[in-house]
């Protein structure tokens, strides 16, 4: 191992401070170097590329702010950003509501609750691409079980093409995402709830408070940090959605479901325009940083007050 040599310079408990420092640096160095090379440097390169007309094949030309000017005029980018925002709002709300419901159900020790938790978390571990192919099949008009059941139940007649209208296409993706990720939301909220001291509830019970009241006055306020965490994770994750749209809707119907990452991919690897792709990336990065900062501030302020 690369580190064994230096590790032999065994630091005494009160050994020289400098030696101790260097040793710590050695421990973190491999990870830091990798993160620098595979993450920090690419971020910098992306920023540089966004000022170039840069083809995938390598030809490039400095064009200043042209890519950003183009971004400003690109209606598809702004439409896509609007759609991604709408999707994020819906997914976040759905995850919070369903996640809360499930967390309330499984937070207590109760016979069989472990099995329930396992069932709700299970979809979290499969990939989004895999889940999307599963959904594609379940919803297929000819061979899928969902249209078949709907027809059998007499709810619809004739063909069911979920991905042919915007509301149904979006709904299908949202249901997929909730199914696939709500287990995680549930776990986080559940842990947060379990961390709330029972004393509060006991006192409230003595005062004759009802469960709904306790939820509103005790659970919700004390869960704020957890909710903030869930919000940040969900918002970032939703703004970066790609797999499910790439596979399920392919941007349709009528280009109404194109997430921003799809445009970044398209500009770079279908149009071979890496410069413009990079400019969109920087735009997305800035938006996400701002959103995260706002959420952190809100959560912190509320905590202070």
């Amino acid at each position, binding site marked *: 191992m690369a580190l064994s040599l230096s590790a032999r310079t065994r630091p005494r408990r009160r050994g020289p401070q400098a030696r101790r420092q260097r040793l710590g640096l050695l421990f973190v160095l491999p990870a830091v170097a990798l993160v620098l090379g595979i993450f920090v440097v690419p971020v910098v390169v992306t920023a540089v590329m966004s000022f170039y007309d840069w083809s*995938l094949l390598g*030809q490039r030309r400095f064009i200043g702010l042209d890519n950003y000017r183009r971004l400003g005029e690109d209606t598809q980018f702004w439409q896509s950003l609007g759609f991604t925002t709408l999707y994020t709002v819906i997914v976040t709300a759905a995850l919070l509501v369903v996640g809360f419901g499930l967390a309330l159900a499984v937070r207590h020790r109760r016979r069989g609750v472990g099995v329930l938790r396992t069932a709700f978390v299970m979809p979290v571990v499969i990939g989004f691409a895999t889940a999307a192919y599963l959904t594609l099949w379940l919803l297929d008009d000819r061979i899928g079980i969902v249209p078949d059941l709907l027809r059998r139940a007499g709810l619809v007649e004739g063909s069911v093409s979920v991905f042919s209208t915007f509301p149904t296409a979006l709904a299908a993706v949202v249901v997929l995402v909730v199914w696939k990720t709500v287990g995680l939301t549930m776990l986080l909220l559940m842990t947060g709830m379990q961390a709330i001291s029972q004393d509060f509830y006991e006192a409230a019970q003595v005062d004759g408070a009802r469960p709904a009241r306790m939820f509103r006055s005790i659970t919700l306020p004390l869960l704020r940090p957890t909710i903030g965490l869930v919000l940040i994770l969900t918002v970032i994750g939703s703004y970066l959605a790609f797999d499910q749209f790439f596979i399920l809707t392919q941007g*349709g119907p009528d280009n109404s479901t194109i997430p921003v990452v799809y445009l970044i991919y398209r500009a770079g690897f279908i149009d071979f325009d890496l410069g413009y792709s990079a400019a969109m990336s920087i735009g997305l990065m800035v938006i996400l940083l701002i959103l995260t900062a706002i959420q952190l501030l809100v959560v912190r302020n509320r905590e202070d007050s």
Partner: protein
Amino acid sequence: MNTTPRPRRLAAVAAALVAATLTACSNTGADTPSSPTGQLTGSGPATMWVRAADEPMDKALVAAWNEANPTRKITMLTVPDAQYVQKYVQAVRSGDAPDLAAVDIANVKSLTGENLLTDITAQVNALPYKAALAPAGVDISTVDGRIYALPHQLDVSMLYYNKTLFTKAGLDPAKPPASLDELVDAARKITALGDGVYGFSFAGNCAGCNAYTLLPYIWASGGDIMNADGTQATLDDPAVAAALNAHKTMWDDKLMPAAVKDDNGATWLSGFQSGKVGMVALGSFAVSVYKAQPGLDFGVTPIPGAKGTASFLGGDVVGISKGAKNAQTAWDFIAWSMSEDVQKTVVAKTGQLTVRADTADNSFTHAEPRLLTANQLIAQAKVPVTAKYNALFIDPTGPYLQFIRNWVFAGDPAKAVADGKDGFASRLRS
């Protein structure tokens, strides 16, 4: 598993990464050493890329070649259609390009436009049967008079019509529609049969399908959707309006199934196959599919327009990558694949069209008159000229599909043209 890095190696790689990326910006030119013109070198075993949709015939060809040339076998690699150009460009970037590239005809300009293929003009000119090669396939592979690829595997789009339904509807099955008016009229009469029968069908939510089968309606109406050098869309062309209005009429008047609006290609073939659809435009590849369908009596005809007929020349051209290490093997394979014997016994035998007009006369093609029709269409078939074919016509979020849908389904030609102009311009700009 050699993909498992040990910490030492990882750290070293990470350090190298940081160092190398600092110089990355100064060193990204695509360096593809070009062989001197007219002289091909390298006669070792070669590699070849084919796209998934056209794999079967290439498999047969490569197997036959490898049997005859045990010392310089060809290794074939199949690439998904949708990612072919992207992956090829990436492979060239990383010096990993195959010797032979069999690429979608409509995409060859994406490769020649970036100067990724070897000039084979001298070799082609030496071929005695050069004039018999599918002209559109050669033209599209030619830049400034230099030839970079040759037709390899051909398919033409044509109009399929159900003879049984034609007879029932009082139409003459020996006289398929030869103009847009006749097409709409026939569709109307067939739809009138009722019982779930529709006169016409197309894949209304499939970009690639409509590039292949809807563009010919426009060409046959005497115009085009792009200018001659493929740098600008010509959505105002009256021929565009003629073709799309015919579709709009058939949609508005319910002469096609409602499901066509959502068909992303998955059920493109099945309506006609079930005998419930009177006419559909498809590639010649569908002949073998429909032939196997019991009780389906169908004919084929060139795709009609307002001013004649047209076809899209689909399939692949094959070229030699710039800097191919085994370019001589590659060329020998190309020449061999076009020889009369191979065209007749390997290509025609797998049910494919021959790339040479003078080899269409063979027992396999003669056994299927519809394929003979297809082979005769090759001479007049066209290919759209653009280096952005994928972005414009194949990408499901591209401008072409949206243009059609706005016109036909949303019924708003003005909006279709306005949005379409923006969409084409934006994707052509990259």
